[in-house]
């Protein structure tokens, strides 16, 4: 889970549990390649799948009229 590096670290940071796949090509993200259930990629895929199936209303709306 996201968290901060232990106290005393020179540069504390917040680390997401989502990996950065933005630089991966579509070939590298081969849909038919087997991913280990506990791999970071598998976790990211599960998370994305959960996100889209959860009911999420659009964030609306702002009345900007003055």
């Amino acid at each position, binding site marked *: 889970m996201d968290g901060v590096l232990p106290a005393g670290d020179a540069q504390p940071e917040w680390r997401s549990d*989502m990996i950065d796949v933005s630089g991966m090509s579509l070939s590298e993200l081969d849909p038919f390649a087997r991913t280990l259930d506990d791999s970071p990629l598998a976790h990211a895929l599960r998370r994305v799948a959960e996100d889209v199936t959860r009911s999420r209303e659009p964030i609306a709306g702002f009345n900007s009229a003055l």
Partner: protein
Amino acid sequence: MRRHTLPDAAFAALAAGRPDAATVDELTRAQLGRHLLMLRAIVRAAPEQTHDGYAALAAADPAAVRAVVADPIVGLWAASCLAALTRGEDPEHAGIERLARLAAAAGAHGLAEQADHRRLRASRDGLTIDVRLEDSDPVRARFGLTPADRLTDGDVVCWQEHLDKAWDLLVGRHREAAAVLAAVLRVIVPVKPDPGVRGISATSADAYGAVAISAPATATELAVGLLHEAQHSVLNAVRYLFELHAGPDTLGYSPWRDDPRPPSGVLHGAYAYLAVTRFWRTEARAGGGAVAAFEFARWRAAVASAAEGLLASDGLTAAGRRFVGGLRDEVRPWLSEPVPPDVERLATAANAEHRARWRLRNLAVDPSAVRTLADAWRAGRPRPVGDPPTRVVPAPGRALASSDRVRLAHQLLAGGAGDEEPVPGGDTPQRWTGLALVSPQPALRETPEIVAAVYRALGDPTVDPEELAAWLSS
């Protein structure tokens, strides 16, 4: 494989609504990654229908593919398609054919697709905003607002004129916010105005960088609306990477909505209105007049109150506490900045009116406790100890805040005489809200829904609400 990471200082600046370019870049890359993951999942869910399209996409120029896939509307489509496939819907019904069109767009370096789209572009002092006007893709209806009809050339000219003026304003006096907007905003989806309010806008967690917004009446409205919605996009991207709230989704008060909202909704509102408050703070300091000061005073109090409420509640994660704490720390110093006393009074009254109206609309008082109070009143006994329990029973439908009092305040501050209708008598929300604003009785000011409930239970129109409120306050 690297995880998405933000240094704590960058996270705090992001929470304060002042992300730097590197932070925005990290969020934007994460959203591209999300789109790529969704594409992969779509292909895996419907391999027969998508194999060729995915192969074509994989063979196209990688930079062109990233540009096409990163588009907010692609995110909106991919989320909808993947959700439908996960539910077991037929791939064709899920919209699977769009994958092949993505491949074609990437193969043509996006030029064919771009040629059909309207673009708005504005530049000033080295800062440029460049967005697509999306007025035809059926997916745009998923913002939950009614899409505007296809724009005429004249409509596009109007949009460009408003954006030009809005950009002049933003770059001229709000450059830091303008830089974030330019980095985040990619698509504007024109929508029809909401009948209940004049201007309306929306974002979607599945469409980072897109804003659905009705045609603005003024450049200022456009500027404020875009700043507001860009904050929602940014927060959606933050929440994709970091869980900020893990507690129960208990519905509660939101200063900018007439309906109850979960904690995530309150946080969204606080973050978006942080940008709005900062905008009006700058405008007021730049001689923006009483209306600017009113908007600043009104929203600074609302944002601070919402942030404090979230921090006092259970459910924020460690990242959530850091984020909301950073938001609170940004707005808190603004609370002591001076505004003209009459403006402050109007702003305080507007917020108090909203709170009272919200309570009367959404809180149901325990009926047996109401009967106990009514019986005690009729018998001339002292008020029983303790407030009756209340629970949130939302009225149906989403409800943006719409206040005659705010409209009246704007009229008065703009030098007008105001055209307020007389407050009706009888047992109406307007009457109870009005009483709550002017009454010296704590029960009316703080829990008008209880006074109103007991008044109704008594069924006697000769009962003086002030007298009843004084008894309930004792």
